[in-house]
């Protein structure tokens, strides 16, 4: 049997033969093979950011004969310095699952049948034309920057509709509202360099060892080099991160607000906060009154004095915090002492624990607040770092603004001036962009899943690069109800069959990752670029082309919105000679680099809020650049690592030290918020006595549609489970691996119990990962969300565990 390809085999055989002939002995055969001379690597290596999480590692992709065959960590990349995680090393396999979608399919008489791309584009265009206001686009933090920008322009400048939102609503939006409330502008002031510079790293409900392993290695491997770094793991369950932590502080779900307020309390009480920094650079803030019974108070709040702030945090004594959070009072004191020290650098990290939280904005604000108050801000190693889950949640959704209330560059649809600027840059008539924000994610899906005559005014929904059929909370209500509604039409662009395509009426096969040109933006404001390296399978095509082709078809059908002020198509593209390139025709889509064109069109937006991006070609040369990237007198482009700090940020005026130049209070100061601890909307009771927390595992990325098709990852972590504390299992007589029912007020699923497994929850708590489409835990979760970020809380709801039989 041949185990190598024929070419290789025959070549080697020839050599063996030559040698045998030369020496006349069989012994020479072995020698020849042993001493064979490789002719040099047959592989072509090119850079790309990893397809998976928001860390933004760069990989070197090895291709041969038009296929990806190997991956290396990119040693030139500052983010990962040559190291990857197991997902990154196997990212190339994500392209080659045998069930890749390769042809458009339309539901006809209840069955999915293959159709042509022409019919697919025509179907979408006619659906939109029939009811433009009832059409919504649901995008993703895995959209490339070009895709997000095209989608945003298509909706807001083309259709004049703000019914576009993205899945970062489910994962990052509380971080956004936290940054906006505190600094007046989104995204972290610090960078990953803080990981090497800090003395203390605090994990706020963040299992970094599994979720951002490369960054965690940057932290813990410092110890191997003889450096000292103290890791404090604040968590509700024991994880692999706890394993390497110096202190593991277990807190009750929702207890994080009490802990953060407890730290503020200790700083005020001992009078040891950084008075100079606070006096020069901070204002205190609280929420104002509710405008009416139904609405929450304004997110940007009202001023409060230091005395009022001191009185507000007064109740949060270490003993009171212990009662609220379960963390012993002496540990709260330890945290307070650390923040009061001037001789150390403290870096806080968080991800979904603080963001998927009905009080997500509040806890984000308080953590920024204690860093500002203590002066642990804006110096290398002193930072509050929010990590992202998706590769371009920042680069695409937050920066390009593919949310229902945003415009590119951090601008708002509700602001007339911002709309006018966007209309000018997009060259569309004044008044084209709607003033009213569209529906946020949960609302969008609720309306799509509600009969049209009962207020369900979204009738056609286009989902790209995401899997809401698995990731939305409370799926029965928010996703599956659509099934019985005849007048609802769902279009899904994806690469594999998923829980979402299951209910799709039209499926579009997409190109993924290095099958197309693309750009991503990671958690530390780093914008990254890659080129297409291999062809997509079958009929699969770029998501961006799909949007552009529909836009063109709508213009041809007479939709005036698809034209700009000059009467030309909104995606009008010309070659160097000024001749129009028909990019709506797939045969000509790669005649120009559409990704570069869209990026250059987007760039002027980025300067509006000092998020300046460099020209496309600068990203071609680099392993990403962190914005603001500012042109220097010599024509080079300089990235910025520490925003708002004079020593690094070119936008800070000389002599200021720090300047929050987008300050909410318009005085260059950041805000230190008071937000009280409050109980979550659903808590365990007699009927549903357990807390349920959901999350990820190292091997799988989000809904697993890619990683479950990679044998090495799937075999290591093949299915979902429910982690339980040994004490609870013993009390209920449950054995390891026994299948039980996890049931909430909304739904139930069956899962095997894993005691002493990957993680170890405290008594009264259970944990279920969400990667397994065969065991959808989001049938069980709660769809309550933060009133500001509209981000649902996947981390806390009440369930019961029922034994079978």
């Amino acid at each position, binding site marked *: 049997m041949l185990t190598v390809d024929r070419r290789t085999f025959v070549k080697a055989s020839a050599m063996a033969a030559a040698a045998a002939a030369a020496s006349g002995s069989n012994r020479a055969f072995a020698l020849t093979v042993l001493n064979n001379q490789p002719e040099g690597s047959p592989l072509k290596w090119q850079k790309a950011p990893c397809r998976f999480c928001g860390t933004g590692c760069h990989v070197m992709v090895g291709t041969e004969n038009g296929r990806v065959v190997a991956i290396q960590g990119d040693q030139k990349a500052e983010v990962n310095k040559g190291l990857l995680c197991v997902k990154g090393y196997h990212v190339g396999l994500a392209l080659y699952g045998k069930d890749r979608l390769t042809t458009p399919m339309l539901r006809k008489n209840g069955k999915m049948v293959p159709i042509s791309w022409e019919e697919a584009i025509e179907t979408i265009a006619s659906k939109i034309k029939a009811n433009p206001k009832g059409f919504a686009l649901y995008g993703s933090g895995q959209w490339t920057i070009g895709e997000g920008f095209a989608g945003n322009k298509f909706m807001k400048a083309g259709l004049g509709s703000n019914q576009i939102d993205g899945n970062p609503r489910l994962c990052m939006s509380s971080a956004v509202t936290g940054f906006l409330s505190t600094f007046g502008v989104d995204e972290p002031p610090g960078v990953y360099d803080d990981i090497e510079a800090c003395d203390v790293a605090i994990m706020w409900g963040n299992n970094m060892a599994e979720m951002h392993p490369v960054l965690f290695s940057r932290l813990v491997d410092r110890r191997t080099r003889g450096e000292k770094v103290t890791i404090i793991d604040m968590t509700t369950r024991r994880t692999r991160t706890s394993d390497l932590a110096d202190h593991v502080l277990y807190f009750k779900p929702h207890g994080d607000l009490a802990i953060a307020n407890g730290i503020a309390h200790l700083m005020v009480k001992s009078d040891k906060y950084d008075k100079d920094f606070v006096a020069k650079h901070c204002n205190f803030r609280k929420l104002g009154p509710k405008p009416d019974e139904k609405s929450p108070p304004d997110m940007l709040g009202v001023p409060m004095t230091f005395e009022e702030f001191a009185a507000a945090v007064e109740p949060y004594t270490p003993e009171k915090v212990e009662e609220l959070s379960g963390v012993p009072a002496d540990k709260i004191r330890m945290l307070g002492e650390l923040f009061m020290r001037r001789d150390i650098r403290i870096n806080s990290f968080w991800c979904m624990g603080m963001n998927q939280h009905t009080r997500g904005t509040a806890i984000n604000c308080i953590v920024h607040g204690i860093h500002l108050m203590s002066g642990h801000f804006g110096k290398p190693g002193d930072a509050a770092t929010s990590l992202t889950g998706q590769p371009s949640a920042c680069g695409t959704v937050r920066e390009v603004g593919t949310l229902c209330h945003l415009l590119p560059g951090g601008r708002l649809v509700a602001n007339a001036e911002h709309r006018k600027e966007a209309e000018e840059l997009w060259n569309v008539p004044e008044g084209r962009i709607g003033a009213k924000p569209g529906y946020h994610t949960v609302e969008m899906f609720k309306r799509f899943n509600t009969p049209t005559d009962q207020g369900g005014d979204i009738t056609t929904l286009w989902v790209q690069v995401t899997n809401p059929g698995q990731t939305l909370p409370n799926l029965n209500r928010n996703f599956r109800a659509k099934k019985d509604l005849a007048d609802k039409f769902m279009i899904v662009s994806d690469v594999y069959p998923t829980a979402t395509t299951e209910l799709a009426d039209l499926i579009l096969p997409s190109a993924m990752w290095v099958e197309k040109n693309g750009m991503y933006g990671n958690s530390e404001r780093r914008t990254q670029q890659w080129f297409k390296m291999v062809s997509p399978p079958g009929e699969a095509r770029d998501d961006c082309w799909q949007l552009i082709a529909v836009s063109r078809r709508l213009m041809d059908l007479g939709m005036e919105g698809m034209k700009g002020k000059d009467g030309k198509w909104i995606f009008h593209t010309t070659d160097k000679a000024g001749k129009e390139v028909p990019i709506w025709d797939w045969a000509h889509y790669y005649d120009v680099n559409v990704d570069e064109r869209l990026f250059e069109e987007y760039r002027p937006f980025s300067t509006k809020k000092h998020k300046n991006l460099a020209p496309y070609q600068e990203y071609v040369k680099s392993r990403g650049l962190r914005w603001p990237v500012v042109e220097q007198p010599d024509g080079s482009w300089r990235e910025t690592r520490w925003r708002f700090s004079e020593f690094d940020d070119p936008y800070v005026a000389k002599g200021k030290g720090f300047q929050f130049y987008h300050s909410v209070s318009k005085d260059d100061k950041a805000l230190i918020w008071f937000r009280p601890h409050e109980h979550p909307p659903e808590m365990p009771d007699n009927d549903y006595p357990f807390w349920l927390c959901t999350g990820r595992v190292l091997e799988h990325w989000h809904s697993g549609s890619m990683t479950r098709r990679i044998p*090495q990852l799937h075999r290591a972590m093949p299915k979902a489970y429910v982690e339980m504390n040994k004490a609870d299992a013993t009390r209920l007589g449950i054995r390891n691996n026994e299948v039980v029912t996890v049931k909430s007020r909304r739904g139930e699923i069956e899962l095997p119990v894993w005691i002493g497994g990957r993680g170890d929850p405290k008594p009264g708590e259970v944990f279920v990962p969400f990667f397994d489409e065969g065991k959808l835990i989001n049938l069980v979760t709660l769809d309550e969300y933060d009133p500001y970020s509209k981000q649902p809380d996947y981390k806390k709801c009440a369930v019961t565990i029922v034994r079978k039989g």
Partner: protein
Amino acid sequence: MQTKTARFRVKVEWIWLGVLAGGCALVAATSVVGGQSQASPLTVASMPVPASPPAASAMMPGDRASQSLPWRLNNPAPNLVPESRANPAAVVDKLAARVRSMEQRATLRAYEGAPPVIPHAIADLNIQSCRACHAEGLRAGDKIAKMVSHTYLTNCTQCHVEAAGPLLGNDPLLPNSFHGFRSSGYGGTRAWAGAPPVMPHTTFMRTNCVSCHGEHGYDGWRPDHLSRTNCVQCHVPAAEFDQLAPTFGLPDVADGQSPGGAAPR
């Protein structure tokens, strides 16, 4: 020595198929008959075989260096550490041992250069326990725990996952058609027969040569001079895999060009 006896009888038929631009493409069909009673279970045809021709100078008939090689192989260097301490069988037939090692290695890797999966159960919540065996490497019966090949990286399970997790049942695997790159073979380029071979792989994450080439390394991969410890004095990595080499310059791509070499669409 047993290695001196013929293990394979090779019958060769030459078939010239054609000439390619830039050089001759030698294409031959070879039929191989395994040795009789003592034959290796592997036939030559099932071996992953090298991808490229020898340098012109390497095997020229009459080349003194090539003539001296069999002598060298049969007359071990004075500082030889007997491979038999690790696995006597490996000494008997180094070639077959190499082939077995290549195959064994490939079963744990999606492609050459991928972090190997873990062929045993692990303690899920104590990732430091890996060090107990893999820090120094050890042998227990016929099982080898390899010493880590790279500098100590704390979070072992970041890159290495179980080949079969504790929850793996009989559920079917979703099929994947990925074909990983495989190393061509059994040694690196030599400038002439007898010259120290260059390493046929990058040294990034493989700084500890004895992990694979030492006593607890792979059968057939141990040098005959284990007592020499400064490996890179004589052996240098091949540049093809080294990202720091100039071949990794990035393309500047203008409109209309397909940078990856793949045809667009």
